[in-house]
């Protein structure tokens, strides 16, 4: 791990001022992903601005029913917050299925949004990676790609987005608030993470020097239930091979509104409007769920080792929907 300079900010204005537009500077909050990557020598900040003292640790229920989450709320505190447990259980389940207790105790909401891929080619500076070093090639395309994405890939990058929390938020709908040299702006959650396309090094809609200050969840869908199902090799402490966040509101025996988001299979936290359309107004039956699953994965592209993810993701969708619609 190379050395860097360190500065501690007391408030948002100081943090963004300290950062400036400096390409070589990074904000650090929990640090569980950033320090990991600096140790791997795949991120080489020359300066870290510590934002842990910023007053962004609160959750606030807004009058319109939304929930405003401070950037520094830890994954643990968010998962167990009474509003989240009551109104956004899919998010609580997603959070608690991620990482480990220790990591969740430290990792922050904004840090989780900023989490970077676990692709081993990305994580090894000796290997080619277009995301880390544009133009160097993609080691995973011809390499081992069992854990890689089947949705949203390009010929330049098939790295999978690792977050569980973001999948829950993707299903719920949310807004990311950032503050930076250009002032404050809101970004819809679904537009925040970018597809790799020709520029896999661009992972999100964040400008240099901008800092995430809040994530605000949409007001809960009236009468909706949620469930997060994560599938992986072992039972805990592993990134998803496929996961599904399902939020469903019923109208009698029919599905009034459904939200489906997928993890472990997309190059970004994957919202499936196709699956949602296939569910809307339909009876909550296995047949409906399977149609939704087919719709969700219709555009999936497999590589040598990850073809199993396509049926696995379908299974995650079907079971998550069965579970959420069976809840009494």
């Amino acid at each position, binding site marked *: 791990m190379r*050395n860097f300079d*360190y500065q501690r900010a007391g408030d948002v204005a100081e943090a963004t001022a300290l950062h400036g537009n400096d390409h070589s500077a990074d904000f650090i909050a929990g640090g*569980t992903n950033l320090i990991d990557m600096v140790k791997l020598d795949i991120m080489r900040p020359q300066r870290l601005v510590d934002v842990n003292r910023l007053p962004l640790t609160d959750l606030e229920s807004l009058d319109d029913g939304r929930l405003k989450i401070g950037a520094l709320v830890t994954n643990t505190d968010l998962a167990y917050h009474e509003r989240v447990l009551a109104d956004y259980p899919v998010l609580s389940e997603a959070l608690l299925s991620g*990482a480990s207790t220790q*990591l969740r105790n*430290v990792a922050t909401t904004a840090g989780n949004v900023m989490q970077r891929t676990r692709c081993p080619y990305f994580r090894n500076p000796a290997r080619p990676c277009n995301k880390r070093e544009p133009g160097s090639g993609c080691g995973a395309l011809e390499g081992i790609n069992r854990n890689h994405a089947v949705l949203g890939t390009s010929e330049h990058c098939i790295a999978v987005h690792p977050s569980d929390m973001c999948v829950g938020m993707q299903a719920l709908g949310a807004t990311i608030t950032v503050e930076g040299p250009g002032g404050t702006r809101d970004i819809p959650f679904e537009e925040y993470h970018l597809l790799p396309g020709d520029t896999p090094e661009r992972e999100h809609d964040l400008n240099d020097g901008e800092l995430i200050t809040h994530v605000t969840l949409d007001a809960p869908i009236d009468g909706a239930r949620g469930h997060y199902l994560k599938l992986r090799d072992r039972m*805990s402490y592993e990134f998803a091979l496929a996961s599904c966040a399902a939020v469903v509101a019923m109208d009698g025996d029919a599905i009034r509104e459904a939200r489906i988001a997928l993890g472990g299979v997309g190059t970004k936290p994957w919202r499936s409007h196709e699956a949602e359309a296939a569910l809307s107004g339909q009876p909550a039956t296995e047949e409906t769920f399977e149609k939704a699953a087919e719709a969700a994965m219709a555009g999936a592209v497999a590589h040598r080792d990850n073809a199993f993810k396509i049926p696995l993701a379908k299974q995650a969708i079907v079971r998550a929907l069965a579970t959420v619609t069976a809840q009494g």
Partner: protein
Amino acid sequence: MMDDSVHSPDDALQPRDASRSSNTVTVSLTLNGEPVTLEVEPNVVLLDALRERLDLTGTKKGCDHGQCGACTVLIDGHSANSCLTLAVMHEGCEITTVEGLARDGQLHPVQEAFLEHDAYQCGYCTAGQMMSTVSMLNDKRIGSDDASVKEAMSGNICRCGAYKNILSAVQSARAKA
């Protein structure tokens, strides 16, 4: 070897390494109940500060990337991987390591339970397992049934596979707490 850049009331906590370079940062924190001041470069990770500068070697390095849990300590009462946090980030924090569990020569109830249930083999992951246990038993949000405990403890790998005995020890310590 003493280093005048560090001011600790406890000789045992004097760092050995006298090297300094231009961008060191001074950090004051509470370590196992004692105030400690460190002057370290920013890239010194808390785990390495404990082990290599403060001789608190009970906290172990197993992966250095938050993937095994051997380095678990308590930061302000909550379990955390000391390998993934910088020492300089902990100004004013209260840190507890395995060396801070026993009081006045009396083992902590979690330590006693681990001894009685043979909740280890090689002992290398043990500090981390116990720190996670202490944190978990204090966190009422985590369920007390075996499945909840196993899930909450899954961030602590035991390659010797003494998991069954660790679970027994955790639940035994819970019953005595």
